[in-house]
């Protein structure tokens, strides 16, 4: 059976190559620290499962210290200039799009097909990780197609990967670090504490006030946690289940669906969400640019959803 470890090994090799290329870059402003950073990140993917939890914890701290204290800088990577790009694009034309489309299409085909393929009753691909494994397969196929199409110098794919990874920089580890923060908050009982505060201090005597506290609370708590999935169990346990469903007899399907969507509005507004961090890094945007483009929509949709919840969760006119 192909397990998720295979995808992690490929990722580990990529980050390892970036570490080596950084070490080989004599013009790099932070040559050794940057190389160490990518080397440690690579180690996390290659041997993370044998390091043990404490070993991984130490590895994370080292990554945070290097990345957080300015140890990571972009190296000097060679790429093509505008004129050369225009010349290659003119020669290859729309065929350049093919490799880009291979990735999502393989991911799609894989996530549909791999679940069905079994040998002697056992799945060929680890069922819970089909998405990640299909993505990895798609990338490998796309890279082969791109190399055949473009016929680049041998090191070009890795040098280009380093150029882009350098532009992402320290924020490459932020999404995983935020996931770790969520786990630590859970361990420390932050969710229980917030649930207790909300349950005690917010006015719940009217239906509208309770719906508003639940919906806006979901958005706010999601902004703090960076993740609606972490906020949802807390708000359901504090308000959704006991008060909206229990006391006021609301429709649990409406309250569940719309509560989660209020959380998504929070995700659109928080610097803690990987959905906002990754594109900011990938597109070379200043901090907050993606969030600013999203905030007006998020606020309007949030208010609309809270209103809809008041109307639809307690309807008496339909089943």
């Amino acid at each position, binding site marked *: 059976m192909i397990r998720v470890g295979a995808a992690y090994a490929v990722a580990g090799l990529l980050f390892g190559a970036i570490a080596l290329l950084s070490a080989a870059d004599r013009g790099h402003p932070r040559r050794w620290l940057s190389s160490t950073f990518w080397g440690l990140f690579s180690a996390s993917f290659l041997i993370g499962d044998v390091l043990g939890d404490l070993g991984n914890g130490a590895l994370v701290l080292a990554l945070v210290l290097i990345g957080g204290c300015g140890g990571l800088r972009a190296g000097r990577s060679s790429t093509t200039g505008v004129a050369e790009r225009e010349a290659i694009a003119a020669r290859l034309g729309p065929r350049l799009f093919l490799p880009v489309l291979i990735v999502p299409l393989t991911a799609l085909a894989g996530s549909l097909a791999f679940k069905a393929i079994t040998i002697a009753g056992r799945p060929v691909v680890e069922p819970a990780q089909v998405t990640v494994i299909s993505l990895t397969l798609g990338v490998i196929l796309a890279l082969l197609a791109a190399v055949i199409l473009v016929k680049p110098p041998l090191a070009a794919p890795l040098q280009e990967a380093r150029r882009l990874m350098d532009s992402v920089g320290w924020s490459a580890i932020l999404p995983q670090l935020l996931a770790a*923060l969520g786990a630590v908050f859970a*361990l*420390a009982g932050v969710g229980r504490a917030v649930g207790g505060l909300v349950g005690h201090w917010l006015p719940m005597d009217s239906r509208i006030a309770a719906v508003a506290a639940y919906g806006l609370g979901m958005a706010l708590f999601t902004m703090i946690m960076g993740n609606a*999935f972490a906020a949802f169990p807390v708000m359901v346990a504090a308000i959704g289940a006991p008060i909206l469903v229990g006391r006021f007899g609301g429709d649990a399907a409406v309250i*569940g669906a719309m509560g989660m969507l209020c959380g998504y509005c929070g995700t659109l507004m928080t610097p803690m969400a990987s959905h906002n961090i990754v*594109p900011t890094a990938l597109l070379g945007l200043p901090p907050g640019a993606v969030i600013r483009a999203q905030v007006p929509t998020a606020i309007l949709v949030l208010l609309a959803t809270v209103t809809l919840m008041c109307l639809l969760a307690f309807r008496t006119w339909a089943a």
Partner: protein
Amino acid sequence: MMSLLGVPVLLIGLLARFNPLLVVTAAGLVAGLAGGVDPLTLLAAFGKAFNDSRYISVAFLILPVIGLLERSGLQVQARAVVSRLRALTVGRFLVGYLAARQVTASLGLLSLGGHAAMVRPLIAPMAEGLADSRLGPTNAARRLLVRAHAAAVDNIGAFFGEDIFVALGSVLLIQAVLQQNRITVDPLRVAFWAIPTALVAFVVHALRLLVLDRTLSRRAVN
């Protein structure tokens, strides 16, 4: 209750613009220690959760492909293709992507989009190319604004589409959490009640994108 101290650390640190890696780690340490978790257990919890969430970073695997194609003029080509379509504007193009992203996500096809796979190589350069060919020479502010909107559309389309698909994480999580609170719901009904908000989100954001067109052309005239 003391574990709540992690929250102000997070807020103040981010508002004071310290490096987010340091802020997030400090907030985790403060919350854990104040909540009575012993330091080694805390470090182990950090390490375990980081290791368990490696799947998030597998998305970076696409960078060699994108980089190689960019080196060969992918973005040039993306710009050229869209600027030939006369009826398109930045806003209309992004409304089209919003609709496509929402519909495919609602069918469970989340992997058809994404910031690394679609926005950076195709959607953002296409939107920028449209801005240039419709509105004349660019400047840094317009380029960044258009790019930020390309990323925002991908998020909004994905978020307000995926909740309509029954077998995706969010509907299953909603069902599981309600179950823990001794409430049984039919996942189909949960997915159904995500539709009103999805429609509102599409209308609101599509209108904003059309307003973006007007803002961009007004700025181009001035």
